[in-house]
């Protein structure tokens, strides 16, 4: 019964997320919903794309979309015919605005000139490339399928193909990485002039090989001081290249922010399709079944693929909004929050914010509360204090 939600949360979504749950092979740190080729029966990917198309068709999207994000997994694993069927269905059933952003994630190890050309020709505007590291040893230990050279080659091709924007992913805090090697990787990537950089702190996710390795004492978490140094150094180096931090883990040249991701950080609605995909429509954040097989079966049987529904109430939406907004440099826009949740909605938070300001974790500027760099680093501890 999400009727007490502010209007914006109930508005028709203007964004679409499409999940491709397949990879060449599984990386050791990865907890995304994806499986390697060895666990993917032949023909499944093609059947999966058919199911995706059917789920998309049944969304009956009327309003033009502002962003599309095809993520995974490894979307670039789709062969050309599967891709073309999917792209065609998107163009037919998901009307795009003139200036829409359309991102496809790509693994440098799956680079394929013709595929890149296909992406560009249907209107993909942005490639997100998982570089992660430029150290061959680390790449191997993470069980990545690519070399540092693959990264450089992929960037060259992306630029040549004329994509208006692209992103590079980089991980810091990897076991054995060290500050210096991280800085030189970062410099090398910045030398490629990426318009956008996502810089992720390594997380030991439950159930991953890496977590097991840590439990077994085979790898160790990097010391806290070093990780902090990596983060602060990264903020300085990116800024020197004109890439400004706009979310805890994201940096962009002006005009190159990931608009799709900003939808998440505004806690605004969006469609999600595919196995394990999350969506947020009509005040319900839902998740589809994770297994590709079960997803296909449900769709083929004409059943809903949804497996979990998080029915948001006003309090939940309010809390989430504070969290995602504080992760963003825009911070909490006082008047926007009051417009959405009523005037005085922040009254109880303000004394807390004042304490944070005094501790150097937050600043108040132009009608917004935003976290400082020190505040970002301990943001999870701070968020806990937002709860009543």
């Amino acid at each position, binding site marked *: 019964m999400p009727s007490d939600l502010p209007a914006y949360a109930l508005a028709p979504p203007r964004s679409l997320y499409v999940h491709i749950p397949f990879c060449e092979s599984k990386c050791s740190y990865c907890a995304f919903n994806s499986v390697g080729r060895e666990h993917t029966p032949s023909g499944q990917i093609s059947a999966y794309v058919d199911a995706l198309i059917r789920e998309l068709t049944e969304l009956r999207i009327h309003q033009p979309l502002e962003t599309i994000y095809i993520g995974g997994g490894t979307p670039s694993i789709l062969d050309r015919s599967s891709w073309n069927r999917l792209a065609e269905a998107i163009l037919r059933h998901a009307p795009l605005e003139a200036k829409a952003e359309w991102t496809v994630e790509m693994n440098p190890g799956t680079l394929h000139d013709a595929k890149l050309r296909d992406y560009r020709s249907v209107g993909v505007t942005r490639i997100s490339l998982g570089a992660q590291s430029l150290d061959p040893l680390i790449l191997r230990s993470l069980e990545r399928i690519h070399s540092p050279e693959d990264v450089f080659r992929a960037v060259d091709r992306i630029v040549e193909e004329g994509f208006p924007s692209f992103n590079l992913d980089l991980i810091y805090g990897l076991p054995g990485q060290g500050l210096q090697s991280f800085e030189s990787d970062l410099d090398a990537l910045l030398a490629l002039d990426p318009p956008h950089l996502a810089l992720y702190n390594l997380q030991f996710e439950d159930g991953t090989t890496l977590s097991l390795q840590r439990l077994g004492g085979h790898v160790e978490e990097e010391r806290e001081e070093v990780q902090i140094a990596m983060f602060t150094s990264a903020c300085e180096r990116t800024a020197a290249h004109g890439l400004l931090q706009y979310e805890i883990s994201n940096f962009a040249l002006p005009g190159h922010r990931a608009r799709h991701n900003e939808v998440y950080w505004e806690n605004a609605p969006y469609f999600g399709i595919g196995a394990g995909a*999350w969506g947020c429509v009509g005040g319900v954040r839902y998740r589809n079944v994770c297994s590709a097989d079960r997803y296909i079966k449900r769709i083929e049987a004409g059943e809903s693929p949804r497996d979990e529904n998080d029915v948001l109430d006003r309090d939940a939406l309010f809390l989430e909004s504070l969290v995602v907004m504080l992760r963003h440099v825009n911070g909490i826009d006082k008047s926007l929050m009051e417009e959405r949740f009523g005037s005085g909605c922040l009254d109880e938070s303000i004394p807390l914010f004042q304490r944070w300001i005094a501790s150097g974790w937050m600043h108040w500027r132009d009608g917004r509360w935003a976290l400082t760099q020190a505040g970002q680093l301990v943001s999870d501890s701070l968020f806990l204090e937002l709860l009543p």
Partner: protein
Amino acid sequence: MSESNEKTARIRNFCIIAHIDHGKSTLADRIMEITGTVDERKRRDQLLDDMDLERERGITIKAKAVEIHWEKDGIPYVMHLIDTPGHVDFSYEVSRSMAACEGAVLLVDAAQGVEAQTAANTWLAVDSDLEIIPVLNKVDLPVARPDEVAMEIESVLGLPAEEVMHISAKTGKGVAELLDRVVERIPPPSGDPESELQALIFDSVFDDYRGVIVYVRIVNGRVKKRDRIRMLGAHKAYEVLELGKFRPDMVAVEELAAGEVGYLICNIKTIHDVKIGDTVTHQKTEVEALPGYEEPIPYVYCGLYPSNPGDYENLRAALDKLHLNDASFNFEPETSDALGFGFRAGFLGLLHMEIVQERLERESGIDLVQTPPNVTYELQTTDNREFLIDSPSKFPDDGTVKEIREPIAEVNMIVPSTSIGAIMRLCEDRRGVYIKTEYLGTERVLLHYEIPLSEIIFDFYDKLKSSTKGYGTMDYHVKEYRAANLVKLRVLVNGTDVDALSMIVHRDESTRKGRQLLIKLKKEIPRHLFEIPLQAAIGGKIIARENIRAMRKNVTAKCYGGDITRKRKLLEKQKEGKRRMKSVGNVEIPQSAFFAALKLDRDE
């Protein structure tokens, strides 16, 4: 003999006593089975252990009465059997049960032999003038050694070996013969149904709808529905709305007469009107009070605080209710600088404390913070005043203490002869004083020691078990208070004295314990956004310090799509965890930290 006296002559009341796990509850199952007391479909193992905690832990915590019917030589008998717990912490349940019986079935595991609690319970039964029927249980086990164990029963307990019965509570072998023996050997109750009503309250329980339900053994006279009754200790009259028997569920009857065991429901809403051991009689009748029970003396105390200060009154109500069902713990309000308003509660031992705390949380739904337990101490001040303290925070800091005395326990341990050396070392480590050794055959010995209670209540039993490959057993009771060189160790967290963490320790061990305690606390208290100094002090002198470093990085890398739901749920869960912590100054201290003191190992 009048008809009603004849009826009394055909009653037998007995309890089943034994060391823990020797099969009391299983025997009760078999007895209920062959007497047709319980429907087949309701049967399950250890049926009388009906509390969740009892089933989870596989031990009996509460004594339970059940009425059974048995015919011998064509004559029908009514018997009340009481299944008792075996653990030393619950021996108050055993002694109360004995007061409602004329005899006891003493079970001894035919493989394990006589254990410390076997002996302790036998002496209790002898003191209560009960007719004892010694029985070897588990004779079905291939490792059973019935002849040897029968000899142990004779030599240790003084009960003739040839009279020892052989049964298996598991297979049912010998159980019918045992019931016949009960009829023959245990005398009928001596009470007179025609005289004035005297009923002993041996237990009670609070029911939200029906008020206090009183469990009684009718000693003399009879009680019927709609009778007006009173408790001698309460000066208030009640009407009996329902009365009945345990079969083993409560079954209403019209009348209970001398010798019988049953329950009374009188819509009693004032919990304090009912006292275990009190005597029930009719409203207008004057009778003498029955002997009742000796109040057990708790020697182990801890603080119980609601995690949420708003639950203080609920906690009081929950304690009152639970106390009705377990009179062996006591409590009174206490205030802690660190924890606010709560209660100081006394227990018969550590397991008892754990069970009470769990029952409180389960039965009332209140989250508790419990402070580390301590024993009681006697103090003498410089102006020669004497008092008893039940909490280290009541220990005067001003140097006015002239002498401090601690409780000394007489400890009996039955251990394999091969581990005597290890056990003696353990006892010496714990400041024990050797008294004597008795040999039980060639393989086992009974060791007598006097050991400060504070040294045995925490991990002594575990150490005894591990030094004897699990074969050692022990029993103890407090003998007296003795002077010792003890000091109070205080703990400061972020500069604030956390009274709930202070402890009384032997001076020779104070520095080591202080250091160890801080190291444990450092592990238990989560890092905060600021640095937290920890200090241990004796008097004004800091004897140890540690620092909990400030948390400088705690950040999630990705927050897209479904991560938002996950993040919110995680925050809600973490917040719940935080609510269970106590905030002292501005430091959140988890319950586990209050228990760190318990785990100070001398080997570290």
